[in-house]
């Protein structure tokens, strides 16, 4: 459970798609003139990422990874016994991932059109655009290169990355709506100032970087912590000693 929460916040704030990796910048810049359209595109990105990342996770686990084909002759748990142990199809991942994404986008479009025409009308124009949004392919490629372990985590990763992207585009759209009334130097108007504002927002988001170090082993302890930690260590040591004593005692009794 803890790893889910950690991944969730990490993907939204620390590894934000837009501010840390510049993914999906094209649509981020092109569709951020009004908040309402930005919300539409952001929602579509959350939706498609949540669907495609877990799907591509299964592709990666059962087809692409070295030795992943072992399930064919029933050796999923012991891949080294399989005839397919040496097969490494990972060079095909780009083409399979992008094919999955393009197909899923088409499929989602058809389903949404059929069952929820109002949602289709609000997302309609954006859905086909999303197939070529780098954030979507980027999500799948990062999922692969970071070796996310379970399907649940992959789902979580897709969903929370989508939320991070949504936050970014809604924030910049709101700022751009306001900045229309300010006196920006003429050559910077439009694109230039948007770049610089995004840069400043990215600096702001960098401050989230320290948010999750508390739980990791690499955390640098603050000044007050050491005494507490020492006490913790002492108590754990005492507990361990007690535990071993009881074990020894019980073994002796036998």
């Amino acid at each position: 459970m803890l790893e889910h929460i950690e991944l969730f916040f990490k993907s939204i704030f620390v590894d934000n798609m837009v501010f840390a990796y510049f993914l999906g910048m094209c649509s981020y810049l092109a569709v951020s003139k009004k908040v309402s359209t930005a919300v539409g595109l952001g929602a579509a990105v959350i939706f498609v990422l949540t669907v495609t990342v877990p799907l591509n996770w299964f592709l990666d686990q059962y087809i692409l990874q070295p030795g992943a084909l072992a399930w064919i002759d029933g050796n999923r748990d012991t891949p080294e016994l399989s005839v397919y142990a040496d097969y490494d199809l990972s060079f095909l991942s780009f083409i399979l991932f992008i094919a999955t994404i393009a197909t899923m986008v088409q499929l989602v479009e058809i389903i949404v059109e059929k069952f929820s025409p109002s949602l289709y009308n609000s997302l309609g124009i954006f859905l086909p655009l999303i197939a070529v949004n780098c954030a979507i392919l980027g999500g799948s490629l990062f999922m692969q290169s970071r070796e996310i372990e379970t399907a649940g985590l992959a789902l979580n990763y897709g969903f929370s990355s989508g939320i991070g992207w949504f936050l970014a585009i809604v924030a910049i759209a709101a700022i751009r709506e306001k900045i229309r009334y300010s006196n920006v130097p003429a050559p910077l108007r439009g694109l230039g100032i948007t770049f610089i504002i995004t840069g400043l927002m990215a600096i702001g988001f960098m401050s989230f970087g320290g948010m999750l170090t508390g739980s990791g082993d690499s955390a640098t302890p603050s000044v007050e912590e050491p005494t507490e930690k020492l006490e913790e260590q002492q108590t754990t040591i005492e507990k361990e000693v007690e535990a071993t004593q009881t074990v020894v005692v019980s073994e002796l009794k036998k």
Partner: protein
Amino acid sequence: MGLLSKKDAKLIKDPLLDDNPITIQVLGICSALAITAQLKPSIVMAVSVIFVLGIGNVVISLMRNIIPSKIRIIVQLIVVATLVIIVDQVLKAFAYSLSKELSVFIGLIITNCIIMGRFEAFALGNGPWRSFLDGIGNALGYGVILIIVGFFRELLGSGTLFGIKVLGDSVEKTGLYAIGYENNGFMVLPPMALIVVGIIIWVQRSKNKALIEEN
């Protein structure tokens, strides 16, 4: 350019300045910014995009009359993905550490908007030779911006170019560092890529007033 007619030469020249894919058309920023912390990956990225866009434009242009327009996006994606796989495998074979450094961003050339944009806007309506020139021109325009950003970020951020210490040694205090110069570590971090591109746009548009946007 004796080889090219005036019209063809324009195809290459225009995207370099007045119709630059990054600063004017706002395409292809996605994979461009993250890898510009140093000059070397920037150049590798630029060369990869020149290869993919040049060849891809020719392939799409040759097939333009037989692709049904309904499925053209998928056909285009498959063509780009194939070319990108070639680039990725070549990099993995001959420059493994560099390909690790570029990580997912080589793969992201597939969804680079410049490529889809040029396929849609040019290759689907023009012959192979002109499409080839258009592809090379646009990829060069993209590469130029990448190299400018990479140059400044590496020079100001770590005081090196291609990993060679051009400003002296920051630890032993030689060269510029002897008179109190310090590296600006901030240039290496991602946000500065955006700000450097913003400044490039600023400079370009104050030179050419015609490019200024209405609010």
